[in-house]
């Protein structure tokens, strides 16, 4: 168990491309940190630098205060779980799990005991003498986990360990990884491109984009207080609605109605560098069927025709097309936010299942004006959070 410090770490390739730029994070002992971002954002490169599989161009990696930059992967005492599981196909499950111990020249008795214990933790006992080829995807994933935990390493490094599993198994393994990490208390760095995994697993999330850290914080903080448009679009499912908005005397004109500039919104637009045209963001959860809202204070209303209605059980998702162009921003495309080319501005509202909204019928929605975020159209900075 260990504290891992990435002190202004940069990865630059020979051809000049910068994969990771000035990555500066301190990961506390026992902490579960998620690196998340779209593909190519540098998250896997960062993990590989921690593991020692890639060199660090600039900056320092310290584990428990000791510099690690020059150490070979095998001298770092970290265990890694790969997306492909990387099991040794010529070895049985037992040999796979025991492999790191064998390399460490551990005594036979202790080795067997440790393998049995790891297999017990992961329900692998019946499969110990099988080859990986004879296992299902979920079982292989557990063997990869077993090989990691058996060593009792300083840290677990996981590179999209659940991406190759089907949706149901992924949810199951997610909870068991979370439980395992809490029980073992081993510092863990976990890479994923899946915002749900990031939100549910991590103590803290590091959101990356194009090699740069966008924001670091606990899941709820990232959700409530995204620092920029990219984070706002990345975290949350369905994604935050983004609408073109214009600042006029004392109010904000948006396709879903005028919002009076009061309180935090007023303070957000007070700066001298705020342009008149901004981007407004409002989460689907901030909407409700107006018929079900009794205390409608501090909210706006909007009437639209439902394009599509999805009943999720505990909630309903209503989709609308607004008669205004969609917001185009480089900060959104990479965030994985659905951007229909050429279509009008899409709006998603999450409604109570009791809502009477019907497809093709107009419905009156209420929304919480205090939950609106305002973003700078060029920099993507969240004006309401500065």
């Amino acid at each position, binding site marked *: 168990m260990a504290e891992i410090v990435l002190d202004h770490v940069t990865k630059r390739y020979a051809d000049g491309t910068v994969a990771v730029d000035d990555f500066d994070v301190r990961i506390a002992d026992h902490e579960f940190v998620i690196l998340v971002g779209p593909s190519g954002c540098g998250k896997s490169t960062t993990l590989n630098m921690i593991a020692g599989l890639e060199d660090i161009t600039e900056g320092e990696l310290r584990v428990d205060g000791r510099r690690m930059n020059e150490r070979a992967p095998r001298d770092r005492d*970290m*265990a890694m779980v790969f997306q492909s599981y*990387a099991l*040794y196909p*010529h070895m049985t499950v037992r040999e796979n799990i025991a492999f790191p111990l064998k*390399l460490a020249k551990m005594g036979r008795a202790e080795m067997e005991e440790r393998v049995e214990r790891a297999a017990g933790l992961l329900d692998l006992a019946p499969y110990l003498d099988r080859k990986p080829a004879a296992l299902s995807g979920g079982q292989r994933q557990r063997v990869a986990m077993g090989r990691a935990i058996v060593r009792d390493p300083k840290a677990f490094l996981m590179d999209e360990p659940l991406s190759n599993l089907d949706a149901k198994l992924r949810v199951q393994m997610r909870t068991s990884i979370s439980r395992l990490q809490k029980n073992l208390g081993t510092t863990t760095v976990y890479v994923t491109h899946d915002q749900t995994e990031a939100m549910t697993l991590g103590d803290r999330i590091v959101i990356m984009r194009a090699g740069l850290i966008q924001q670091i914080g606990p899941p709820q903080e990232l959700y409530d207080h995204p620092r920029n448009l990219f984070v706002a679009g990345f975290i949350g499912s369905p994604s935050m609605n983004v609408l073109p908005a214009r600042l006029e005397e004392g109010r904000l004109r948006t396709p879903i109605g005028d919002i009076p500039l009061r309180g935090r919104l007023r303070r957000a637009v007070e700066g001298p560098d705020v342009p008149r045209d901004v981007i407004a963001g409002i989460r689907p959860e901030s909407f409700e069927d107006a018929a079900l809202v009794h205390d409608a204070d501090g909210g706006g209303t909007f009437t639209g025709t439902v394009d599509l209605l999805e009943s999720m059980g505990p909630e309903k998702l209503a989709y609308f097309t607004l008669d205004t162009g969609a917001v185009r921003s480089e900060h959104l495309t990479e965030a994985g936010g659905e951007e229909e080319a050429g279509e009008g501005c899409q709006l998603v509202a999450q409604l109570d299942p009791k809502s009477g909204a019907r497809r093709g019928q107009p419905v009156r929605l209420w929304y919480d004006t205090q939950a609106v975020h305002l973003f700078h159209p060029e920099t993507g900075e969240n004006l309401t959070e500065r």
Partner: protein
Amino acid sequence: MNRGKGRALTEGQRAERRLGLWLCAPAAIVMVVVTGWPIVYSVLLSLQRYDLRFPEDKAWIGLSNYATVLTSEVWWNAFWVTLLITVVSVAIELVLGMLLAFAMYRAIVGRGLIRTVVLIPYGIVTVAAAYGWKYAWTPGTGWLAGLLPEGSAPLTERGPAIAIIILAEVWKTTPFMALLLMAGLAVVPEELMRAASVDGATLWQRFTRVTLPLMKPAILVALLFRTLDAFRIFDNIYVLTNGSQGTGSVSISAYHNLIGGLNLGIGSTMSVLILVTVAIIAVVFILGFGTAAPGSER
């Protein structure tokens, strides 16, 4: 379609099968004519006394040609020489081939150049290359012979001559070994190497505990191909020494008896014995080591 067990094939399936046989037939016939018949003919010749110098003495003599060959010192000398050349050259080729395979596979800069350079010897006709070696080792004209002490003529002495034959053979066929091994290397997933290094393996341990076991099918196939080939060595020896000073292989002996001595019976007997030996080698590899075609394992 499926009308229960043991039921005859449907009309469509039978027609399909018949078509399949017809499509295979030309290739099968060519194979039988080109390779099957010569083998049968050799076996028939080996059972006869048949020397073209004394054609009137031709007679069926059963296995007595085999008795003659198998009790002959010349044959056994050729056999052991062949075995020595086979074992030593294949062993050296395996090690060198592995190094070259790694070089070709891992090269970051000039990968194309390295691969081309490595493959050059394989692209040169064996006989042409053998003449190159011969001149190189001939005193007075050869640059390699010039490096040796005055008065030495390595190709006229048994030990040095065999060494030169092995050298020529290794030089010529290592690229082939390297190609086969590189195909095996490419099968080992990169992520396994990364996993092994995180698991604590040194470079050598990654090679011996992960790469080698995973490459085993490719290695065995490469060894099988090369062993069979090496056991039939002919052209290098033919050019370099023509089998003098006891450097002849079994193929050279068979050739000398068949073509030089015009003794079809003895020559054919030797050819059949070579075929049997090669078949034994193949069976040992396939049964003993579980060699399979690449990819058919797992």
